[in-house]
């Protein structure tokens, strides 16, 4: 199978069915909400979880996109420095695969050319965003998010004080989530990028959303910070659909990088419960 076809098939699947890690987070969240659904806020939040699970069943059965906002493609290409496949071919395979999936899986055409003036629809949901990242070796791994914009509009960047420590991080994430409230289709997934520069932290926050939600951060300090952020966010009582339940977020993943002595850039990428993602590993096929 050609690489472009592999990409297309992964994208056709991703728009209809959630990955198993995301699904298990939603099921766990539902159980958590059910335990405490004694008041009307909790009960309504629980109804949101049930609607989500019912929706996923119908999407699966009818091969319909689970959400009409089929998102903007955000690709992350981890390209081996010695990979024999040249970037121009990879780029072509991504564009061809994405275009094919848009047509075959009934993606909504949600991309416009000019952001300010004409806002003319490109009619094919392209161009995708492609982040290129060089890694060691000869391999090639392509990962992709279908990024919905109800949640993207609630994502944010904060330039924190360098001496703020974990408290400043937790407070900033909570503030961003609180401002989003019911808008990003909670329960939500949070990608947190810390360090680098302003734009680099934003990139890291997106990349963090790709991590398997069953796996905690490799560094125990950051793994604990992920847990602490999640616990703090749950106290906001936004809940499913913003109805005030106890389960606002389903998972927090952090990616961090070296930064400057004068700063601690922090970005939060908010994703709705429909945390659609896919991974395509190149196995020597043609582009």
């Amino acid at each position, binding site marked *: 199978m050609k690489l472009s076809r592999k990409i297309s098939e992964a994208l056709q699947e991703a728009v209809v069915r959630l990955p198993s890690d995301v699904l298990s987070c939603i099921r766990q969240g539902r159980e958590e909400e059910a335990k405490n659904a004694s008041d009307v806020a909790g009960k309504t939040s629980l*109804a949101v979880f049930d609607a989500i699970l019912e*929706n996923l069943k119908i999407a699966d059965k009818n*091969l319909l996109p*689970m959400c009409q906002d089929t998102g903007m493609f955000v690709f992350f290409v981890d390209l081996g420095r010695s990979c024999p496949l040249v970037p121009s071919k990879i780029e072509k395979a991504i564009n061809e695969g994405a275009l094919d999936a848009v047509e075959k899986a*009934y993606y*909504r055409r949600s991309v416009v050319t000019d952001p300010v003036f004409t806002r003319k629809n490109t*009619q094919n949901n392209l161009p995708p965003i492609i982040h290129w990242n060089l890694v060691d070796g000869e391999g090639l791994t392509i990962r992709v998010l279908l990024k919905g914009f*109800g949640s993207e509009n609630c994502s944010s960047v904060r330039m924190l004080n360098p001496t703020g420590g974990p408290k400043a991080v937790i407070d900033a994430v909570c503030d961003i989530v609180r401002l989003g409230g019911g808008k990003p*289709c909670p329960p939500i997934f949070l990608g947190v990028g810390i360090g680098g520069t302003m734009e680099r932290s934003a990139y890291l926050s997106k990349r963090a959303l790709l991590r398997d939600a069953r796996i905690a951060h490799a560094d125990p300090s950051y793994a604990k910070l992920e847990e602490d952020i999640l616990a703090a966010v749950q106290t906001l009582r936004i809940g499913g*659909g913003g109805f005030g339940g106890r389960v606002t977020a389903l998972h927090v993943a952090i990616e961090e990088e070296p930064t400057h002595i004068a700063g601690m850039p922090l970005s939060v990428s908010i994703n709705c419960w429909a945390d659609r993602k896919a991974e395509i590993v190149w196995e020597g096929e043609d582009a």
Partner: protein
Amino acid sequence: MRKIQLPIAESDLLSLRAFDQVLLSGTIYVGRDQVHSRLFDLLENNQKLPIVLQGQAIYYMGPSPAPEGFPLGACGPTTSARMDPFAPRLLDEGLRVMVGKGPRSEAVISSIIRNRALYLQAFGGCGALYASTVRKVETLAFPELGPEALLLLEVEDFPVVVAIDSNGTSVFSR
């Protein structure tokens, strides 16, 4: 769960309370960002609207394309807050029910109280679920807007939660 027929009867509208879960059946307009901007401009310029708003409901939504055998693709709600600058003007014109997701501005809440209107929240992201409730679709205006065109839907048992009732009581104010 309580079933409500659209266009909504006055007695139904006034009796619904925040957090009530309801199934809607009947006809509802569909319009989001560009439709709101255009209807607002037409009203500001004293021009005729392509639809009658009095007594009607509008759903903030932009569907994905319909596969063969379906009247419409995935069709869950979009974020209502973006319609806030335009909503009070439409309510003043006689629109009675708005369906979307997420909180509304103070100005919208005041307008809901003033006009005895209703704001319902659909389940965010549940596009396939809502597709299964759509019986008929008609494009009424602005077809050039593609997924943002002004539609008329006929729905059956379309699930929503009352988010702001006609007294202005909101599920979001805590």
